[in-house]
Every structure is written in structure tokens, then in C-alpha cells.
């Protein structure tokens, strides 16, 4: 462990041949797996988007936007890979508060679409700060826990500050309203907290509080359409024109793909607009209809690879910040994959959560790519010690 940063390229080295060798060494040890998985998924995503948006006159060229965003994401990846990831530790709170500011900006200057204010327009493009918040928050939490010295599990008092860090953005996103994103942020936080260990007593009390609060929130906190979604999840036939219909149509689309799918651009469910939001939240049903079980299994395997690789990056990280940061990013991916696919397959109620790399949406795509970039950065640095 004493060779430390003496071997980093920046540090002077007496032997020049050694330097070259080390560069090659480093290049060889570069963790490509996550980037390869991500690029494969992006490729599948674009390919699928061409089919999903081909029928709609107004969304005809959407995949081109997606390509553009992808390019932007990869450019940022190169930037992120250069410095040591500890730069995120230093900038954690700056990033967090900047993003918070953007979220406030959304509510003030935001653009409305389908009754929600989620976007800020920048020229022809519009960004969705709530997507970036997922990463910012994970960085911020990793930073917080890095310096935290709590021993023997977290109690209520210890949870107060991190809880506040989460609740502020979650609240801002909730009022947009964007229940899906707010829930994923909360789920990520809960997962990380559980990982950090919470005192049993605290957990039990929180559990009881939730049991009491949930029906109340259901009754008074949710908007009618959100309540409707939960009702129609429990009984898809309860609301004929609403989300129950979406759920059924989505299941039919997935199921009708059978083993090999109906073929590219031949999915009747999606092509005939039986599917709602089929290029964003329901993109996977388009894919499963056209590519069947085989296609789905491949995508699922890619996600599995992504999650496992991510976990091993976290596992092998040598410092607390890196470990927690990697873990947080994997958690974000995990919840997105689970909630979105669960919804598409009728396992979970309909919550607007994008599927990483496959759903249309620039902010979501860039966030996912940046997540992979940070993971890769952490993965590479482990050889430097």
C-alpha cells in the first residue's frame, strides 16, 4: 500500500520506459465492462426508438435527439474520467446546491408539459433537473457519510441532517409533480441508509409511522390521478379509460412478443398507439413486443451485468467515499430498472420512471451515462494504490 500516487502519470518518475509501460498497464487495466454494457444498451435503445417513434408524425425524428444527447454524455464521460473521483467529494455540496437551485428554477420558470412543470428550456433543448438530482444527491450523501463518525447504527438524531438533504429535493420534485422521480430518490436514500445500518428501534418506529402515515397520504397527499393508478394496479378493470387500460395494454404488448417477437417495427400494440407514452416510460413494452423473450432476456442480462459490475466496483473500492458513491449510483440504476420493468409487466403500479438507456429523454440518458462514467472512474482508480 505504500506505492500510492507515486505511480500516477502526473508524478515525476525517474524511468521513462517505466512510464510508458505504466500507461499501457493502466490502459490494459482500464475497466471497459461498464462502458461496453452501457453503449450496448444505448445502441439497443436508439434502435428501438426508431421503431417506437416511427409511426408518430410528430415524434418522427426523436431518435436523432437521443443520439445528440448520447454524444454529449460521452463527451462528459471523457471529462469525468480524467481527474481522481475525490474531486466529487470536494465539490459535493456545490453540485448539490447548484442542482437544488435548478429545481427551484423549474418551479419558477419551468416549462409545462402534460400538466407538470419538469423542464427548463435552454435554446431548443430542455433539461430535467430532477434527473440530475439523482446523481447529485448520491454524491452529496456519499460525502456526508464519508466524514460521519456514527457508530453502532443510526438513530433519529443522526438521520435528521441526511434526511433533510433528501427531503428538500424530493419535496421540490413532488410538487412538479413527479411522483416517480421523488419516489426513486427516496428509495435510493432508504437503501443507502439501510446499508449504513439504522438502529433496530429506530427502524421499528419508522415502520409504525409509515403504517399510520401511508393511508393518510393516500387519502390527502396524492392527486386524484395518482390514487387512480394505485386503484387500477390493484384492479386493472376499475378504470376503463385510465391507467388500468394502460397496464393491460402493456401486458398484452409484452406477452404477445412470445419467444422471438413480432419483428422489428411490427409491434401492433405500439404501432397502433394502444400503448401510452410508448417512447418514454413504456419503451420496454415496445421492445418486448417486437423482440420477444429472447430480446428481453438479453436486455435483462445486460442490466444484470451492469448492476453486478457496479456492485463489484463499490466492493473493491478502497475508500469510504468511493464505495458509497458507487453503491449509490448502482442503487439508482437498480430502482429504475425494477420500478420501470415491474410497471411495464404489470407487477407494479404505474409510476412515471424512465428505463435507463432505453427510454427517450435527454436528461435521463445523460444522467445514466454520467453514472456509468463515475463508476468507471472509481473502478480505474483502485489500481493506483
Amino acid at each position: 500500500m505504500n506505492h500510492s500516487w507515486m505511480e500516477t502519470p502526473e508524478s515525476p518518475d525517474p524511468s521513462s520506459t517505466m512510464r510508458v509501460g505504466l500507461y499501457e498497464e493502466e490502459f490494459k487495466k482500464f475497466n471497459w465492462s461498464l462502458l461496453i454494457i452501457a453503449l450496448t444498451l444505448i445502441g439497443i435503445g436508439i434502435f428501438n426508438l426508431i421503431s417506437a417513434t416511427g409511426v408518430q408524425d410528430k415524434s418522427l425524428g426523436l431518435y436523432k435527439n437521443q443520439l445528440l444527447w448520447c454524444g454529449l454524455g460521452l463527451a462528459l464521460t471523457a471529462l469525468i474520467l480524467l481527474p481522481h473521483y475525490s474531486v466529487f467529494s470536494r465539490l459535493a455540496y456545490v453540485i448539490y446546491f447548484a442542482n437544488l437551485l435548478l429545481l427551484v428554477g423549474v418551479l419558477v420558470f419551468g416549462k409545462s408539459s402534460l400538466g407538470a412543470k419538469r423542464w427548463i428550456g435552454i435554446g431548443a433543448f430542455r433539461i430535467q433537473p430532477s434527473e440530475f438530482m439523482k446523481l447529485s444527491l448520491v454524491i452529496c450523501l456519499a460525502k456526508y457519510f464519508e466524514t460521519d463518525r456514527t457508530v453502532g447504527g443510526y438513530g433519529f438524531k443522526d438521520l435528521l441532517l441526511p434526511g433533510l438533504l433528501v427531503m428538500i429535493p424530493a419535496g421540490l420534485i413532488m410538487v412538479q409533480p413527479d411522483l416517480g422521480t421523488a419516489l426513486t430518490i427516496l428509495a435510493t436514500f432508504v437503501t443507502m441508509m439501510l446499508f449504513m445500518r439504522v438502529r433496530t428501534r429506530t427502524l421499528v418506529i419508522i415502520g409504525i409511522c409509515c403504517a399510520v402515515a401511508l393511508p393518510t397520504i393516500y387519502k390527502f397527499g396524492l392527486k386524484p390521478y395518482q390514487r387512480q393508478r394505485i386503484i387500477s394496479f390493484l384492479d386493472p378493470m376499475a378504470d376503463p379509460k385510465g391507467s388500468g387500460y394502460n397496464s393491460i395494454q402493456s401486458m398484452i404488448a409484452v406477452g404477445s412478443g412470445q419467444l422471438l417477437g413480432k419483428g422489428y417495427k411490427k409491434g401492433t400494440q405500439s404501432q397502433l398507439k394502444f400503448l401510452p407514452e410508448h417512447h418514454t416510460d413504456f419503451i420496454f413494452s415496445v421492445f418486448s413486443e417486437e423482440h420477444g423473450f429472447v430480446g428481453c432476456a438479453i436486455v435483462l442480462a445486460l442490466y444484470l451485468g451492469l448492476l453486478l459490475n457496479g456492485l463489484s466496483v463499490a466492493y473493491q473500492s478502497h475508500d469510504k467515499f468511493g464505495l458509497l458513491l458507487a453503491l449509490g449510483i448502482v442503487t439508482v440504476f437498480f430502482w429504475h430498472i425494477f420500478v420501470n420493468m415491474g410497471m411495464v409487466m404489470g407487477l407494479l403500479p404505474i409510476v412515471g420512471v424512465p428505463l435507463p438507456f432505453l427510454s427517450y429523454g435527454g436528461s435521463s440518458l445523460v444522467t445514466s451515462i454520467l453514472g456509468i462514467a463515475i463508476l468507471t472512474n472509481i473502478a480505474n482508480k483502485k489500481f493506483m494504490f
Partner: protein
Amino acid sequence: MAFLGQEEQIREFQDRFRYLYAAVFLVIGLLLSRLVYLQILNGEKMRQYSEENRIKRVKIAAPRGMIFDRNRTLLIDNRPAFDLEIIPQYLRESRQTDQVLGMLSKLIKMPKEEIQGILEKARGQPSFMPVKIKPDLTRDEVAAIEVWKISMPGVEVKEEIKRTNIYGDIAAHLLGYIGEVNSAELPILNKTAQKYKLGDSIGKFGLEQRMEDTLRGIDGEEIKEVDALGRVKLAKGKGRVLENNAGKPAKPGKNLILTIDQDLQLAAAKAFGDKIGALVAVDPRNGEVLAMISRPSFDPTEFSRGIPTAIWNKLLTNENHPLRDKTIQDHYSPGSVFKTVTAVAGLEEGVIDEKSTFRCTGSIRVGNRVYHCHLKRGHGEINVVTALTQSCDVFFYRVAQKLKSVDDLAKWARHLGIGSKTGISLAREVPGLIPTEEWKMKRFGQPWNGGETVSVAIGQSFVLTTAIQLANTYAAIGNGGTHYRPYIVKSIESYDGRVVKEFQPEILGTHELSPKTVELVKQGLWGVINSPHGTAYHQRLPGMDFTGKTGTVQIMRLSADKIYQKCENMKFRERHNGVFVGFAPLKDPVIAVAVIGEHVCHGSTGAAPVARAVVKTYLEKYYPDLYSEKAVAARLKAHGQATFVPPPPKRVDPEDEDVVINDDNVPASDLGAPHVPPGLPPSPPKPTRDTSRDALPDSAVDNEDE
């Protein structure tokens, strides 16, 4: 390094990773098995379903509750209407759009370009959603389309329910109308629960609005499987994904049984003719509303499926305000019918009694103003009974002068229900107004002056009432002082005839009127119609104690030289309003009626005949032992008269005939009325009516007393 001390903690963290790995495998495994379930195990079913079938959800609109009158005469029904719709998706798929539209255009006689235009407009919405092309198809068109439907993919005939007011405009305001829920109303309606969707029907006026929750049913739905061309598929066991969800039936709304009697409504509307105004008839024994009409009116049926803009605009711009319910929504100056209240106040406050007489010389001076009687030459010596009968203004001016203040008058007006809402279960009722000293101070910042009390005493000045208030007030006088809340809905029944709720009379209050007061007032009112000197003598029902009071309300301020001019010579919008309120029979009345006729010139000829028609219809229908040819003959015999003798004509100077401030004289043309055969009521004089209407603004009732 800063994190060297973390090693131990990191090792501790690494221990916990197995849970994370477990979670990842669990979730991916779950998703994979769901894929197996959907795509492999149920794949074939789903495939067949998605390729051959499309779910089509058809809303089964729940019929709205029907509305019946008290004898179960159907007033509002739901009748089918047929709309032509096109589902663009199926039309486009068939690749024969042009031919189909051409064929359709011939069948429904609508230019092809127009159909294309409508489809073009609907391009934004999902193509599986039907687009309405033509509403209200005729039976022939429906038949023709059904025949040719097989070669017109995407073309559909949709049956819809059309809310139909069977009697058209008769009770439009009372029954009200329905309309589509608009996007502004939606959030308010769905505050507590998801009850309405855009495009649902909702009551917007009258009972339809007030009883919305009762009348509205619960929509059902039908799940149909259709093939790619939009035709309903026959049941087929295999491939039907939703076999266990055959939809749910609609639950019809509840029916209303009203207190209204449709025969009275028809009689009232007929008697009203094309006059403008309102009529309310109540049962003085319980507050049931027997008839309630407002004229001019409109046909609510036209509203039920979206009213054409042209008709709507015409209704809105009509200067006679057909959309207003004149029975409860419009304030009227009561004029002479208010004298009854003044008489009650005078008697109860003890400033006059049955022996009190005043001398009417045709006018009196209060301060430096002269207040006229409608009879220029005066009524001479007159007491409370004859003053009511002949509607002598001077008598009531003197009563007002004797009262301590206007507040004494206001107190009794309120006791009798004037100046406050009756509480009838209809929206938008206005309260009326009874001025007091305090009110004037608050409203105008001026003290009350004595002359104004004089005007109030004859129902002028600031006094405002509504037709329903007047009917209720006279009902209370008729029944001896009990004040009921007027009500319209007798009972609510479920669609299969079970009584869900029955409404009971509700006593709002009982005035403590002395029997003497009631007797004197009733006697005076009886004379109005039954004494040869009465202002509505020509409206009597022989053999029946029809009782009431006329009023004629000047609505424009007239200069002194014009006071006595003939009303019929004035511009239409400047003519007096006619009011009549009465009840029958004298003892234990069974019906009380208030009629207000706008610009009809006289209460006696413009309003009283309408009331008379309603009372006559009611008595003949429900109380033949009180009023029928036989009953009348028996009664006349009992009175020792073999035949009915018409009273001697009233001697009136021609110049005195016309109403001034608010009188109720009979026009000269009616004085030489033809001889009326015994047992039959005299034919009511035909009101002369100037049809040329002036474009004067519909000025509010001018309450100036001179």
C-alpha cells in the same frame, strides 16, 4: 492518507454486500420469471389477442332519473338519439378512405369535404378514439348506415341518451337543463372523489342542478372485442383475454316525483299566452308547490346534447330574459297586493280596527308632497275591508301615517315572509327587500323620511318581493297564519319504483295574528273579486269564494300630467306590471296563487285571469264537491237564488278608469261585459296587447312613488 483509518469500516461494509447481491438477483429473477409467464406461458393467448382482437370499451351511460308530476305524468324522459361517428384508425387501415367517405356523404347528405374537415380537426387525438361526425341522425339514416356498414370500416352509429322535456318549454326553469361538464368545473366536482369526466352530463339549472346527486346514475361499461376493422367480434372462447371481465351494468339514477300538477302548469301556460312574467301556486295546507312557471321560456331539450350557439345567443340577448326564472330570481315591486300586509300591520299594531274609517278625497298631502289615490275623485268614507276591496290608496297612506315608523310595517311584512328567501330548494333565489330605517341609513346614509312610509304602505318605494314570496305570504294569510317552506319534490324513488325518500311539509313559523285580523283581511280580499266594487270583480268564479288582491305597479316615473294617462297608449316597456295574488276557497283554502305579468297594464285583466284559470283547473280536478257545475248550482240554491244574477255595472267616470300609482281598475272596454249565463264564469276579457316592442332597456322597477 485520509482514509487509511477507514479500512476497518470498509471491511465491515463489504460484509453487507451479500444482501445487495441477493436483492439484485432476486429482482432480476422476478422480472425474468414474469417475462416467462407473460411471453412463454401466456404468449400465445396474448399474441392472438393483440393481433386479432382489440379491446373496445363502450361506456354504457346510466340513464338519468326521470321526473314525474304529482300524478305520475312523465315530465322528463331519456330518449335515444343516434350519432354518427368515425374511428379514424380503422378507416385509415382499410385504405379506402375516399370511397367510404364518398358513400357516407351520400347516406347522411353531408358534403364529403365537411366530413374530411371534421376528421382533420381531430387529428391530434389518438386515432382509436371516435370522432363525432353528425349528431341526431334520423331513423332512415340510421337504417341506411346499418345496411351499408359492412363496407364502411370505421363508421359507427352510436346510440346516446337525449334528455327530453316532454312538455317543451312549460316548466323549463323549474325542471332546468343539463349540459356537459367543462374543464373549469371538473376540479371542483372531483374535489372529494373522481366522479365526473370531461363530457359527462351534469344538471346546470333548476331541479336538474339541485337534485344532481339524486338524478345521476352510475355509468356502466361493456367490453367488446373488435377486429381490425372495428366490427364487433362474436364470442370466441379461445383468445379472449378478458373473459372474466364482461363489464358492469349501468345503474340508473333515481326518479323524482314532484308536487307539481302538470294540468295546472298547462292551464297556467295557456292563460299566460305570450305575456311575460311568473306564476306560482302553492297548497296553503302544506307548502307543496302546485304550479310554477316563468315566461318567456325555452326548451331544455335543446340543451341536453349541447345547445347550438345560434339558439343560445338568441336566448342570451332576448330582452325579456327567457333564461331567468322569474318566479324566484327576479325582484318585483308588489304594489297594491302589499296593502294586505299594511292592513295586518295596522290592525295588529292597534292603529286601526274594524270601525276605523278614513275619508278618501283622491289625494292626501304629506309634508309638501301630494300622494294620489288611483281613483281621482276619491272613494269617500272607507274602512279597512272596503279599502282592501277597492284598493284605496289614501286609506293605507293614513294607516302608514298612524304607525310609529316604517319598522312596524317591516316587522309584519317579515312575519308574513316578505323580504327574505322562502328557502325553496332551487338555486339562485333572491331575498326581496323590506326597507327599515336602519337599512336606509346603512344603504344611503340618509335618515328615513315619513313620506316614504306612505309609499311603502302601498307596496312601492323600496319594497321588493318575488312571485314565490307573494304566493307563500297569501297562503299563510289564507290558512290562518302558518308559514310553510315551499317544496317541489314530493318523493324520490329508485328506478324500480322503491320509495327512497319522502319529503314532509316543513313549518317555518306561525305568525301570531289575531283571528279578528285574519277575518277582516280575508273579508276585504273576498270583496276584491266577489263584491261589485271589487277591483277584480270580473274574474270571479261564480259559486266559489275565490279571494285575492290585485296590484298594478307603475314601473316608470311619470310626470304629474301623465299619471292618469291610459296605460295601453304608452310604450310597451313603460307600461305597468300587473300583479294578482289570491287563494280559494275563502275558508280553509286549498290553493294560493301569485301571478306577475310584466307590462300587462292591469293586475285585474293581466294577472288575475291567469290565476283564475289555474284555480279553476285545480278545483275542478281535485275538489268537484267544492267546485263543479253541480256544486255551484247547489250552492246558489242554498243562497236562495234560482239563477245567477250578474251584479249591477259599476258606475265609474271614464277619466277615473286608469290606474295611476298602483291601482287596479277595470278598463272601460270591459264594463259593458256581455251577460253571463248562470253557473258559468264570465269570459275573461281579452287583454289588448301592443306587439310593437320598444328597444328600451329593461329598467329595474322604478320605486319612486310619483
